[in-house]
């Protein structure tokens, strides 16, 4: 027999799984939006930059609210879309311009020393920071609409 606590845990895990699948499918969609085989480089840069930015913002918001942020997988995705927005314009026939750095450094982030390896390290640091913050704040389970974030973002309760 399954206990109510175990059933709730399984339900949370299932919801989390579903969100992970949605996030992966969405990211695959962003990757597919690039033409050309060298798209991987651009996808990685803007993913790492966007996700790192989102993770730092999420950590700061969580620290201020003393509670984990809701829908944690959506924040990095939205930031990724912002970071790569000029690439949507490019696909529509509008070339890049330097002012497009306002989209999370869309132009100049490609040219940092170390290239994507540097951004990978930045991403891992940002993720580590976010997860460390999560270990010190309450999960969002109090909000019934956002319970699914509890298992991923679950800090000490």
């Amino acid at each position: 027999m399954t206990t109510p606590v175990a059933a709730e845990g399984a339900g949370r895990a299932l919801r989390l799984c579903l969100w992970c699948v949605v996030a992966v499918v969405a990211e695959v969609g962003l990757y597919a939006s690039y033409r050309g085989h060298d798209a991987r480089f651009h996808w990685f840069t803007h993913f790492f930059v966007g996700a790192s930015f989102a993770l730092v913002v999420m950590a700061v918001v969580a620290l201020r609210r003393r509670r984990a942020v809701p829908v944690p997988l959506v924040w990095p995705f939205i930031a990724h879309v912002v970071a790569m927005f000029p690439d949507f314009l490019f696909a529509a026939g509008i070339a890049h311009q330097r002012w497009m750095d306002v989209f999370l450094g869309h132009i100049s982030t490609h040219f940092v020393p170390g290239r994507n390896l540097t951004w990978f390290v930045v991403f891992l640091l940002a993720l580590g920071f976010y997860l460390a913050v999560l270990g010190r704040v309450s999960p969002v389970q109090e909000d019934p609409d956002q319970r699914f974030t509890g298992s991923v973002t679950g800090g000490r309760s």
Partner: protein
Amino acid sequence: MRGLRLDRRLAVIWLLAAVGLGLLLVAARLARDPLDDRDPAWQRPGFLDAGELPVPAPQVAPGVPADGRPTVVIFERADRLAQLCRALKGAALPGRPATAVVVVDATTGRCDAAGTVVGDPERALARSYGLRPTRGGGPPVGYAVVDGGGAIRYRTLDPAVADQLAEVGTMVAALP
């Protein structure tokens, strides 16, 4: 104990992300084309005047680059020229640019869809246009966009240039 377990779970999430994305990065690096730029940041950057550009464009042939209107100088290998010519036939580049195809590893080539075809077996033109070395070595495949004033405003390696002529058009259209 529970707090310790939760911290472990967070550490596992971090580790999974590090290993998963790290493996994807390695896979992406291994899957690169020999015709790609050694530094992917300089391949198809998508904006004019990158790096030391603009610089004066060397002459490819008499009247090329054209005076007063844009010119696209495409560097291609002889064994891929037919595919490029087929693509050029159906292409509608904006601003009616003059198109010069430089066959970099033969003395000459034939392409009715291009205005001019010249051979560059010693790669002197490719060097003078500042095309970067390919990852696998050998003649570069890519293009340069020259403005009406005779300055190179954009240059890139592009192994799939024949399939992406619309992108060439985007860069031509970006010229002031």
